[in-house]
């Protein structure tokens, strides 16, 4: 959706326009907010922050939307700023995310020792590259399992497999990833 399309939609029906924005950019905003609040907020905090982002976006649409704006960039900027605000206040409160994953897959990933001296950006790039090398659906399963904290049943729905198959693939993919990371000198 471009800013011009958005402006036109706003004129015909603001509520429908808001719905369309949430539908189109909900996942995008969620991913950005999740990335910042994953370590310090609960799922309710993340939902609150996402809804704050959209409320701010609706305000911008109502009062201050220029048709020259790059909409995706604008939404991304609002999302990052709001998420940082939430991160600050949640960190100040000292709240922590609660681990609710029911199975023991997490043990697999805790074996890695992250060397804090390694540049995190490089580490991030290498990790994502190695995960991608596993191919689909393994890369999606690992990211959704260990980064997005989804359970096997939820992942099974998104990759059209059974929960048992997801667990099995996840364990094997994690073994493969461990080997790949050892080859490049990461992990122990």
């Amino acid at each position, binding site marked *: 959706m471009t800013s011009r399309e958005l402006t036109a939609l706003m004129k015909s029906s603001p509520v429908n326009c808001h719905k369309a924005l949430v539908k189109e950019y909900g996942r995008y905003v969620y991913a950005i907010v999740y990335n910042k609040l994953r370590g310090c907020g609960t799922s309710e905090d993340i939902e609150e922050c996402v809804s704050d982002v959209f409320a701010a976006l609706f305000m911008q649409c109502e009062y201050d939307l220029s048709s020259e704006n790059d909409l995706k960039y604008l939404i991304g900027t609002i999302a990052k700023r709001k998420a940082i*605000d939430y991160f600050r206040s949640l960190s*100040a409160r000292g709240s922590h995310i609660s681990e609710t994953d029911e199975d023991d897959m997490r043990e697999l990933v805790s074996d*890695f020792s992250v060397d804090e001296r390694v540049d995190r950006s490089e580490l991030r790039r290498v990790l994502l590259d190695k995960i991608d090398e596993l191919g689909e659906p393994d890369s999606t399963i690992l990211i959704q399992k260990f980064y997005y904290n989804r359970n096997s049943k939820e992942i099974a729905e998104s990759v059209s497999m059974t929960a048992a198959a997801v667990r099995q693939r996840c364990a094997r993919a994690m073994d493969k990833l461990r080997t790949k990371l050892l080859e490049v000198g990461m992990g122990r």
Partner: protein
Amino acid sequence: MKEKNIFDVLENAEYDSMERLIDKCPEISDEQLEKIFVMSEKKFRKQRAEKERTKRDNSIKMTHGDVVEGVEHSKRPAWLTPLTTAASILLIAGIAIGSTAMLKRHTKPHGDGGITPAVTVTTSTGTGTNIVSTDENGSTITGTAVTTTTTTVTAKASDGKDNNTEETADTEFIKPFVGTWRYEMSSVNNLSIPESADYMGTVEITADAAYTMTDNSGNVTHGTISNAVEEIGGTRLQCLDFSSNEYSGTAFLTTRAYYVESRPYELHFGNSNIARLVREEHVETIETNWKSAYRKELVNLINAGTVFNDPMWDLQDIDGDGIPELFISSGTEKSDYVQIYYYENGNAIGINNTVQVLRFGDYGVTQISKEDHYIGYSYVDNIGVIYDLTRFEEHYPYNDMFIHYHQLDDPDDSPYGLNARPISEEEFNSWVSKFNSKNWISVGRQYYIGDFSPLLDN
């Protein structure tokens, strides 16, 4: 405690890594999207209503010749006026006849000093009508008025001499205080801050040295008042001691209230300036200016409870308009910040970019450069070295954020950014030079919360 997870390094991702994580983000269910939409819409409507209200308040300007229109007309039945007139005449006539009968009895003593039977005087305080009457046998004549409280004083049987003089003398002290009073308490324990005075109830003091208090929840308390005098530093102070007949309802802060001649409209409880009775007709004149607006903001902060860990505040004029801005610091931790308010049309308004109220600084302080009206701060975090530079002009923040990233997803990316766009090293350095050239002073934590002295005219 959460175990170290290698996937944690994916947090705070930028650029390409973020895009890859967005691609793999699970689909959000329709129910969850609907929930987010409903929450967002609710927050949006609230923010819009707030903004519209502020806009509307700011645009109302009454001039001398303006006429208020659109007042609702009320209709009353035509027969109501003659009926109420007739009822009033009857009531007045009743009072006149009753009073005459009583006066006659007092002017004609019973013979040769015989014993007068015991008499009960009933004083009723209610809908504005007092009825005082007895017949010769000592029976009380009751009126038609609705009564809400009754105090009964029974005079001793006399030997024919009039007891009335003695009774009047006992309650003489209360005469200057008879009437309706508001009971007020300060929410910040300081009635010098007029914005902090909360209405707690209405107190009716009657000529028989009794009182009735109706608190703001509708609870009614009755009690009596006795006379007292205190001498402080050679000055005699008139005091009233309030004694409640009940244990329910709102009690006064202390039992003793003091009267000072310089403030004839007020009876204050204790010496702490926390609670007082104010005559109903007395209207406190509060000048509306930046000081009153900022006092109100600070009172709201105190009344909101423990929003911040260790708040303090400050006054500094950033934009050089002669009216200082109010700085409220949230505490002293790394994540603590400063919110800045400016004065406009009687209100303190948080500096905002129309989307959100901005927060400045870290560790609860920020820097300002008064000469050229800038707010600025810099800090280091896991993204890089971040500079935030805001020019505050005509009550709007023109903000630039420039960053030297120390992590890059793509080695080909520029490690320098301005407002989330890549820039060259030269451009970045020129922004840093601009930042460093300012005559910064660190502000935000000059006064303790509860210290209103810089905001009081005296």
